[in-house]
C-alpha cells in the first residue's frame, strides 16, 4: 500500500507505519468534525445538552416573555408534537443523537432536563 501526500511532501509505503494510522485518524476526525460537529455523541454531557437545547428552544419555539427553565414541563408552555419533533431533529442534526420511539415515553420527554438525560443515556440495544 502506498500513500502519497504531495502537498506535505512525504510518501509512505509500509501499512504498519505510524504515519499511515495518523493519516487515517486525521481523515476520520475531519469527517466527523464536518458531519456532526466537533463533539462525539457520548462526549456530550446532559448539562451541555440542557444549555444547548434551552438556547435552541428559546430562539425558535418560545415566545420572548415565556417563563421557561430546564425543569418546566413541555406541556405547561404548550410545546406540541411538531415542536417536539423539531427538538428531536435538532438533536439528530447537531449531535447525531437519535432517540427511538420506545424511549419517547411521557416521563423521558417531560422537560428539557429529562430529554437531555434520555439523550445522553445509552439506548437499551447498544
Amino acid at each position, binding site marked *: 500500500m502506498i500513500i502519497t501526500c504531495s502537498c506535505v511532501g512525504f510518501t509512505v509505503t509500509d501499512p504498519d507505519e505510524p504515519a499511515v494510522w495518523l493519516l487515517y485518524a486525521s481523515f476520520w476526525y475531519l469527517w466527523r468534525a464536518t458531519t456532526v460537529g466537533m463533539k462525539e455523541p457520548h462526549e456530550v454531557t446532559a448539562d451541555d445538552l440542557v444549555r444547548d437545547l434551552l438556547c435552541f428552544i428559546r430562539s*425558535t*419555539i*418560545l*415566545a*420572548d*416573555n*415565556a*417563563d*421557561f427553565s430546564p425543569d418546566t414541563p413541555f406541556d405547561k*408552555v*404548550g*410545546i*406540541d*408534537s*411538531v*415542536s*417536539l*419533533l*423539531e427538538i428531536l*431533529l435538532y438533536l439528530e442534526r447537531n449531535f447525531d443523537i437519535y432517540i427511538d*420511539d*420506545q424511549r*419517547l*415515553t*411521557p416521563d423521558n*420527554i417531560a422537560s428539557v432536563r429529562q430529554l437531555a438525560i434520555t439523550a445522553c443515556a445509552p439506548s437499551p440495544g447498544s
Partner: protein
Amino acid sequence: MKMLPEVELSGSDYFLFAMDRILRRAGRSGSLCRLVVELEGCIDPEEFRHTINCSQVLQWMVNVQKTSRFPFALPRWRSNGTGNAVPVTCDRVAKHCSGNRETYFSFHGPPEQDGIHSPLSFALANHDDHRSTCILNWDHTLMDAHGAEILMRHVARAPEKQEILEGLLPSNQVSVGGRVQRSQGFGERLSYARKSVRYIADASAMPIAILKPNGNNRECADQYCTISFSEEETERIVSQCETIGLSYYHSLFYLAAAARAVHAVRLRKKEGDAPYLIPVPLNLRRKGGSGPAFSNNVSFLFYRIAPEEIQDFRTMVVSLKDQMRNQVMQEIPHSYAEMMKILRRLPLPLYSRLLSGPTGGRLASFFFSYTGECCPGMDNFMGQLVRQVTHLAPATSIPGLSVVFMRHRNRLKAILSFRNSLLAEDDLKLFEEQLRKDLLPENG
C-alpha cells in the same frame, strides 16, 4: 391601551378569505366557528354585556374590515369607523331545549345586521337547571381557534385584568421558518416558499377520495355530532397510543382513526378507492406567550393516505409518522406559511381559483384538527365553575366534513361538523363504531 389603526392581514387570514369565497360559491354563508363554554351556575346578563362592551379589543375586532388600497397592495385590517357594539344575545333556555344541540345552536347563531352576520358575537344562555352556556361565534377569517381561546380567557377574567390585552393583537409572537429568519431577500423567500408547492402538488395529485353528498348539497344545513369518551376510555386510548409508539404523537393516532371511519362510510356507500388528502392545521404561535389572539396564525401539514395503507391501522400510522417527520424536516409548514404570505397580493378571485383549480374544487378528503386541551387552566368563567369547553368547527366545503378532536379535563371527544346531505344517521353510527373500534381495539 392604544388601539392599532390598521394591521396587515396574515398569510393565513388571506388564505381563509380565499376559502371563504370558495364556500360562498358553493352556496354557503361563510366559515362560522364557535367556542362553547358550559358553566356550573348562571351569569347575570347585564354583567355579561357590560364585560363584553368594556373590552377595547373586542370593540376593535367587531369593527375591522379587510381593505386594500390599490390592486396588488398588501391587504390590511382597518377599522370601519362605525363604532358598532359587540352583539350579545342573552336568553333563558328551557331544559328540554338545551338537550338538542341542533335546535340550541341554530337558536344561538350570530345575529344578522342588514342580512350580514356580525364577524364576532357572544351568546349567553341561562338554563332552567341553574347552569349556563356562553358561546363565542366568530368568522374564521378574523381569527383561529387558538386565538378564540385566548380571547375567551380574556373575557373570563375581565374586566379587572386589562393588562393581558397587550398580547391579544398581532405582534412578533409568530414563528417563522429557520431559513426565513436568516434571509429576508424576496428571491430566497420565494424559493423557500416554492418547496411547499412541489410537496403539495404531489400530495394533492388527483384522484382524491371524498364523501359524495346525497341530493343537493347547496340546500343543506350544517350539523354537529359529538362522540365523547369517558375518563377511563381516554386513559385506555392514551395507553394504546404508547403501545404503538405514538406516545407524543396523539394527533396522528386520532387522524388515522378518523380516516378509517370516513373510509368505512365510503365503503358502505360503495364509493371507489382513491387516496385521501387531509390538511391538518398547525399553530404557528410561539409557545408560552399570551398572543396574538386576533388574526389567523396557522400553517398546514398535508397527509396523503394511499388506499392500500388505510386497510391496516399500523401501516397507516407508520406512514403518517414518516410524512410528519419528512415535512417538519423539510420545513414544509413554514414554507407554506411563507407561500401564503407572498400570495396575499393576489386578487381573491384568482387566489381561490389557484386553490381549488388543480383538484377540481376538492379541497381535501375531510378536514381534521386536534386542538389538544381546550382552554387549559380556565376553571372559572366570570365567577362560575367551568364544566366543559367545546370547539365547533365549520364544515368546510368541498367535501363539507370536519373532524375535530379535543380534550377537556382528561376526557377526549370528537366533534363532527358536516353538511346534512353528506352523512345520514346510519353513516354517523357506522363512523362512531369504526372510530371506537380503532381507538379502543379490545372493543372490536
